[in-house]
């Protein structure tokens, strides 16, 4: 046994305590070896990302692109309505056939006195062909012919002056000789001559050409007579003021090609409730007092490329219209009240043909006409956005701009959803079929509404009253949920094939198609609240 002194005892205790503490300290220290991270690796996890996508109200005015053939009529929300206005289609009919008088007229057996003592003259009036009455005229062509028999034994000098036929401010004067006992003849062209009714010509002779026939026979008998015949024919005028007889120009056809564009898709689907077709007919003339004209047996025919036709009918069901034009212009508006126009426009023809018989000056009036004058037809049609749709499909396949890099990121999405709350103030049903396709156009999957038993993606139409006016917006809720398989397939999507069906509800207020007439107004509003989310697999390595 060791016996310690007091100080030794303390040192011993101290040493002992230190040893114990040291051992405890080392033991504790050794119990925790530090494991410093040397190879940190980015973690991965799933996170829910939810975003609002769209919260907006769209009026139809916002949705429908500005197009020059769509306008809005009315300013208040109650009466404003779309007007779909066609282009103005124009065609012209030349009326040169009217500006002529061609049937030969004659004046024969006229005895012209001739004396060796004095020069004699006599006024003779030659009827104008076709009974035309000329106040003024410009000849393009025309023929005058004279035949004379001189029974005397000496030569006769004959001068025929036409006071109304003028060139270079001088009246036409024709000089001819008739040899003794001979038959003489002269033919003269009126090309380049103007006509102006001589002031002294009596009104009863206005349909005739005045001729002053003079003759002389020096060294001849005291009195003798020449036997003369006068003819005129084939008057073709550049212009005429006066009277030209009624003339049937025959049947003429004008066609207007209508560019329907995408509207073709709605053939046999749409029924219009209100439409107008404006027909303007004008005589295009530099003159103030054109001749009237009449169109008979007018047929207005709508045709499609496949040859199917529809006739515009009047209120009695007749396809033959008669149109009479006085004062150089005519306007007529076809509506559903005076025709079957709604059906005609709803037919959506690609060509409209107008056939008619043209009769010039049917009333035998006087006027002015030039060979350059024409009859111009201008037509256009318009319809308002009061209509009925049977189910009309618009289908297309469009590419999706997903890059390979995007695909990698999309693959990290596990599930996704889109919720659509629609408050539809537009009275149209819309149903969508959307299918995603891969590079080879193979179907990946079709989007479905998991909030509907039918799983259709449909937006219900606004409720309308019996006049087709919107009374209440309709609420629709769509939830498109993509499961993990679909989300993965989404990364392979390169195309979207969609079919959109647009239609109005069925009703008996449209006896033609059975679809309900609705009035679509620019202020019809579609409120959309779209939001969605994705469960995304965060892989921070992908973010590098």
């Amino acid at each position, binding site marked *: 046994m060791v016996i310690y002194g007091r100080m030794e*005892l*303390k*040192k011993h*205790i*101290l040493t002992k*305590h*230190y040893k114990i*503490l040291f051992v405890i300290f080392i033991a*504790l*220290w050794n*119990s*925790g*070896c*530090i*494991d*410093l*991270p040397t190879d*940190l*690796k*980015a*973690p*991965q*996890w*799933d*996170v*829910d*990302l*939810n*975003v*609002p*996508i*769209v*919260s*907006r109200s769209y009026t139809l005015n916002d949705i429908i692109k500005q197009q020059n053939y769509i306008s809005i009529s009315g300013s208040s929300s109650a009466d404003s309505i779309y007007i779909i206005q066609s282009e103005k289609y124009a065609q012209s009919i030349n009326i040169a056939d009217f500006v002529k008088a061609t049937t030969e007229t004659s004046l024969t057996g006229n005895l012209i006195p001739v004396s060796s003592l004095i020069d004699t003259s006599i006024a003779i009036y030659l009827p104008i062909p076709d009974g035309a009455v000329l106040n003024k005229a410009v000849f393009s062509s025309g023929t005058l012919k004279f035949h004379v028999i001189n029974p005397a034994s000496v030569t006769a000098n004959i001068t025929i002056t036409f006071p109304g036929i003028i060139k270079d401010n001088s009246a036409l004067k024709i000089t001819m000789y008739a040899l003794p006992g001979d038959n003489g003849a002269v033919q003269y062209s009126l090309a380049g001559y103007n006509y102006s009714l001589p002031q002294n010509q009596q009104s009863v002779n206005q349909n005739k050409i005045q001729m002053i026939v003079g003759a002389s026979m020096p060294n001849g008998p005291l009195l003798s007579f020449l036997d003369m015949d006068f003819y005129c024919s084939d008057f073709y005028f550049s212009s005429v003021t006066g009277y030209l007889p009624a003339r049937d120009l025959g049947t003429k056809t004008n066609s207007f090609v209508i560019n329907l564009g995408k509207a073709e898709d709605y053939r046999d689907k749409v029924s219009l409730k209100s439409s107008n077709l404006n027909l303007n007919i004008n005589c295009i003339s530099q003159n103030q007092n054109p001749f009237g004209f009449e169109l008979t047996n007018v047929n207005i025919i709508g045709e499609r490329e496949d040859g199917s036709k529809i006739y515009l009918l009047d209120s009695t069901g007749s396809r033959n219209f008669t149109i009479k034009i006085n004062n150089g212009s005519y306007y007529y508006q076809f509506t559903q009240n005076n025709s079957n126009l709604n059906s005609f426009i709803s037919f959506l023809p690609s060509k409209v043909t107008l056939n008619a018989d043209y009769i010039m000056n049917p009333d035998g009036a006087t006027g002015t006409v030039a060979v350059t004058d024409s009859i111009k037809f201008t037509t256009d049609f318009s319809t308002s956005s009061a209509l009925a749709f049977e189910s009309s499909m618009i289908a297309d396949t469009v590419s999706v701009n997903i890059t390979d890099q995007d695909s990698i990121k999309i693959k990290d999405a596990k599930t996704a959803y889109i*919720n659509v*709350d629609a408050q539809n103030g537009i009275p149209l049903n819309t149903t969508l079929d959307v299918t995603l396709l891969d590079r080879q156009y193979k179907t990946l999957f079709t989007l479905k509404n998991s909030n509907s038993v039918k799983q259709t993606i449909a937006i219900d139409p606004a409720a309308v009253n019996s006049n087709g006016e919107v009374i209440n917006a309709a609420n629709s809720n769509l939830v498109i949920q993509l499961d993990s398989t679909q989300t993965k397939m989404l990364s392979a999507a390169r195309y979207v094939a969609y079919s959109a069906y647009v239609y109005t509800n069925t009703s008996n207020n449209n006896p033609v198609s059975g679809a309900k007439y609705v009035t679509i107004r620019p202020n019809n509003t579609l409120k959309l*609240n779209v*939001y*969605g*989310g994705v469960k*995304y697999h*965060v892989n921070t390595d992908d973010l590098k």
Partner: protein
Amino acid sequence: MKTTAILFLISIVLSVNAFAQYGSEAVTDARSMGMGKTANATSQGVYSLGINPARLVKTEERIDFVTALPLPHVSVSAGTNFITINDINYYFDGKTYSDNDKRNLNSLFNNGGLINGDCSFTLLSFAIRLKPSIGAFAFSINDVVDGNFTVPRAVSSVLLNGNPENSSYSFDDTKLRGWWIRNYSLSYAKKIDEVKTSVFDKLSAGISIKYYQGFAYAKSENLNGNSIRTGTDNVISLNTNYSVKTAFSDNFHVKYAFDTTAKKDAEVSPFSSPAGTGFGIDLGFNVTVCKEYDVALAITDIGGITWNKNTALTYSDMQYSLNDIFNKDQRDSLKNKFKSVSKPVESFSTGLPTTLRFGIARTFDFNDGGSFPGKLLVALDINQGFNDEPGNSTKTRVSFGGEWITARGVPILRTGFSFGGLYGFHWGLGLGIDTGPLEFNFATFDLQSFLKPNSAKYISVALDSRWKF
């Protein structure tokens, strides 16, 4: 400005900690750190500067001073209050988080994601004790670089869970605090033997007058209503309401957004021109009660700093709602609204990390008898900060610790525990070697980081030396 400021903030957040006595939280000397940052009634000589100047006289040596030799006063402390090395190894090994993993990782941020660091350095500290009738004088120069950043809990929640419908996350617990300051301190302490009762004895009082220079300052303020909310139909609402005050030394050549003049690269040096100046006072008393207990009471760093160089207020006060990501106006608005705006400010003042310090200590001397050798010093501290300036906290910190001095030449053992405050529980452990004129101290404030390093959130090691004659 942004690059420089970010570098500055990163540097202060990740900085190391050296010798200092400052604020209710900041790291103290190695001796105090070993006792769980218990110092108020146990510090002596130059170690009492910044804690309780009255205790300048509580040493038998006439002179003591601290220099960089033979050991500089260095302590290293860095860490967070939310994640351990074990956590890092677990959560960053490339695994795919299960729902449970996400829940557990998120829960680490329940008390906020505080990342802190502070660095202080005593360029010189010198104390001399004259005749008792005159008292003791001390002079010291201390630099403090302190900063912390609280990552808001919402960050982890948003990253891990996303933004479920009808969820709301607040970012108001974001905090940024940091500065670099230097004080020139002149201290005086005296024993007041005239005040003596049967209960109170050995009263001493001390005062330190400090001239402060500030070189950099950044602090977030007025965080109120900063949030991201995903409401019904996934409508996302974002709100910001915060401001950050900053000031920088001319030498840093910080360029703010509103600053149109060209700036050179930063020139950070120990003798940069100050961005602000101020004064502070430490007052302290120490008394022996019932001849056994040292009771100390001090209030330190009464005063403030006025910052007037390169001062700016960066702020944002915006409300934003997104319900349509295809709406260009909304998208543009998002970009424009959440730009922080900086504006110059004339000057602003900040308080010093004013702290009330109370401590009580008793020394048990076993040399006079008994089987336990040496002296055992036990002490209790209560530190109460009056503001949240860097290094300080309004959360009360309580610590107790002990020091066992056995015999000359035998290492001195120290340990202690700290509770409350910004950083919660800590267990300190230290060793001291007293060779007479020279004293060496080694400590850690985070013994758990040595015993279970993988579970540690903080790591700290301190060492220093003090000359005394």
